[in-house]
C-alpha cells in the first residue's frame, strides 16, 4: 500500500491539470481536446468507487452537464461519429451534476430515435462481409450470432447525416459486395442512400466518386432513368486524358490515414469503375462486342 500522501498528491495534480483541460476545451473545443477530456473521463468512470477523486469526478460531471445543456455535445455527435463514445460517456457523467435535468438529454434522445446516432453501420458491414469472404475460404469467423439485419435500414439511414468523406463510398461498396455474395439472404436492398450519394457526387463535381457510385448503383442497387442518363452524361464529359487516371476524390484529407495513403488506389479504382460503368450504363459497348462476336 502506497502512502496516503503520495496518492493525495497524484489526485491533486490530476485535478489541477484536468481543470485546465476542461477550461481549455470549453474555451475552444477541438477534436484533440475532446479526445483528451474523453481519455480522462474514461479513467474517472472506471475509478469512481475509489475514494479521493471525488472533486475531479464532480468537476467533470459538472462540465459535462454544461456542455450537454449548451448543445456542444450534440454538435460534436453530429460532427463525427468517432467522437460518439466519448460524447456518450460525458452525457452519462452529466447525469451526476447537481443541476442536471432530463430535458438536457432530449436532443440526443431525439437523434437516437431518428436513428442518426447510436448504431454505426460500418462495423456491422465489415463484420458481415468479412465473415462472408472467410466462409468461402473455409474459415468460420462467425464467433457469435450476428443476427439478421435489414441492410436497407442500416445503409439508408446514412442519408440523414450531412457529411461527405470516403467512408460514404466505402459503406456503399461494402454493401454492394455483401449483396453480391449473399444477396439471396438479404430481403431488402438499400436504394435511396446510394442514389442520393451519386446525385451529391454529380452536383459537387466529384469525378472520382461518380463512376464508382454509378456502377455500384447499376450493379447492386437501382439506377433508373433519368439518373442513369445524367450519370452517363457526366461520365462522358469527365473522361481522363488517354493514359491518365481519374483524379483523386475531393476532400480526402479529412479521412483516416489508412484511406489517405491509398490515393493512387482510389484513382485506379475509379478509372476501372468508369470503364465498367461505360460498359453497362450505355448499351453501345456491349452491343458492339456482341456484334463482333456474332460476326
Amino acid at each position, binding site marked *: 500500500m502506497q502512502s496516503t500522501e503520495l496518492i493525495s498528491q497524484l489526485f491533486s495534480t490530476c485535478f489541477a491539470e484536468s481543470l485546465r483541460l476542461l477550461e481549455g476545451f470549453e474555451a475552444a473545443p477541438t477534436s484533440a481536446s475532446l479526445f483528451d477530456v474523453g481519455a480522462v473521463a474514461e479513467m474517472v468512470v472506471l475509478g469512481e468507487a475509489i475514494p479521493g477523486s471525488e472533486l475531479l469526478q464532480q468537476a467533470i460531471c459538472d462540465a459535462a452537464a454544461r456542455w450537454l*445543456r449548451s448543445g456542444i455535445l450534440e454538435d*460534436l455527435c453530429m460532427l463525427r461519429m468517432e467522437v460518439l463514445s466519448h460524447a456518450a460517456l460525458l452525457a452519462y457523467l452529466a447525469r451526476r451534476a447537481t443541476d442536471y435535468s432530463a430535458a438536457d438529454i*432530449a436532443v440526443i434522445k431525439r437523434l437516437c*430515435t431518428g436513428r442518426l446516432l447510436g448504431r454505426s453501420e460500418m462495423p456491422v458491414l465489415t463484420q458481415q462481409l468479412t465473415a462472408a469472404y472467410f466462409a468461402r475460404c473455409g474459415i468460420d469467423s462467425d464467433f457469435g450470432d450476428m443476427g439478421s439485419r435489414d441492410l436497407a435500414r442500416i445503409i439508408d439511414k446514412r*442519408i440523414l447525416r450531412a457529411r461527405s468523406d470516403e467512408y460514404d463510398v466505402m459503406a456503399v461498396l461494402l454493401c454492394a459486395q455483401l449483396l453480391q455474395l449473399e444477396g439471396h439472404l438479404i430481403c431488402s436492398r438499400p436504394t435511396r442512400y446510394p442514389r442520393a450519394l451519386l*446525385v451529391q457526387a*454529380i*452536383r459537387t463535381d466529384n469525378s472520382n466518386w461518380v463512376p464508382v457510385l454509378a456502377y455500384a448503383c447499376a450493379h447492386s442497387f437501382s439506377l433508373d432513368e433519368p439518373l442513369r*442518363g445524367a450519370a452517363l452524361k457526366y461520365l462522358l464529359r469527365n473522361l481522363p486524358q488517354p493514359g491518365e487516371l481519374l483524379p483523386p476524390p475531393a476532400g480526402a484529407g479529412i479521412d483516416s490515414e489508412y484511406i489517405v495513403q491509398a490515393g493512387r488506389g482510389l484513382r485506379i479504382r475509379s478509372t476501372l469503375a468508369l470503364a465498367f460503368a461505360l460498359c453497362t450504363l450505355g448499351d453501345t459497348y456491349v452491343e458492339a462486342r456482341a456484334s463482333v462476336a456474332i460476326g
Partner: protein
Amino acid sequence: MLKLEPLLLSADEAAATSSYLRSLQERSSSLLVAAQSLFARCCLAAGPGSPGMLGELGAEADALGQRILHAPQPDQLGLDPVLLIEIYRLLKDGGIEPAAIGALLERVGAELLTQDERIQAMGRVRYIASQLTCLGFSARAAKPTKEMALLMRSPENWFSATAADLAELADHLVADRRRLERDASQILALIALAELRNYRVDLSCSLLRAVFQLGEPSAEAADALSFIALQRRRDGRYGFSNQFVESSAGADEHLELFLPLTVNAVWLFHVEATYRSPLQPLNA
C-alpha cells in the same frame, strides 16, 4: 422510410421555437431579422394546436409594415417580398388583414408592373407576381425565358443544374402551380437530399416546398423532411454548428446560421402539413 411521428412538432415544441424566434427579434434592430422571425412564427401559429396566436402576430405585422413604410428607402432594405407576402397570406387565412403589409404589397405589385420583360421573366419575380395575383393584388406573371422553359420540361437535366438555376427553377414551378409528374417530383426530392448532405438547407427547402406543394409523396421527400426535423435543438432552434471550425470574428451564429435554418424548417413543416394528403400518411 423513417417513422416520422416522434419528429413532428408538438404544441410545446412549436411554442419553444416561437419563443426562440421572438428572442432573436428582440435582440436585433434589423428589419430583415424582424420579418424572418415574424414569418416563421406565423407558420407555427397557423398550425394545429396554436389557437389565438395569430391575433398577436397581426398587430406585430402591422407594426413591422409601418416601420418598413416609414424607412428612408424601403426598397433598399434587402427584404425578400416573399416573406411579406407569406406573412400577409398566413394572417389573411386566419381572418386577420394587416393593413400596413397590404399597403406594402400594393407597392410591390405596382413596382413589378414597371419592370422590363427580362426582370419579369425571372423566377423570383414570377413567383412574387403569382402570389400577389392570388391574394388579389394587381400584378402580372410573365412567361419564363425559353431556356428556363426548356429546363423546366427536362427533369433529367436538373441533376447537373447549378444551385442558382435550381433555386430559380423551384420559383418558376411554384409560380406556375402545375402538378409535378412523379419522376420530376422524385428527382427534386433526391436532389434536395443530396444538397442537404452538403448542408445547403436553403436550396433544399426551396425544392422540397415545391415537391410537397406540387408533387407526390415519396420516400426521398420523407427522408428529407426527417433530415430537417432532426436538426431541432433543445431551445427550439434548428441546425448544428461545426464546433471545430472557428467562427469569424463578430459573427452571430444565431442570426447567421440558426435563424435562416429555423425559418426554412418551420416553413417546410407548414407547407408539408398544408398539402399533405389525408389518405397518404408520411410513414406509409
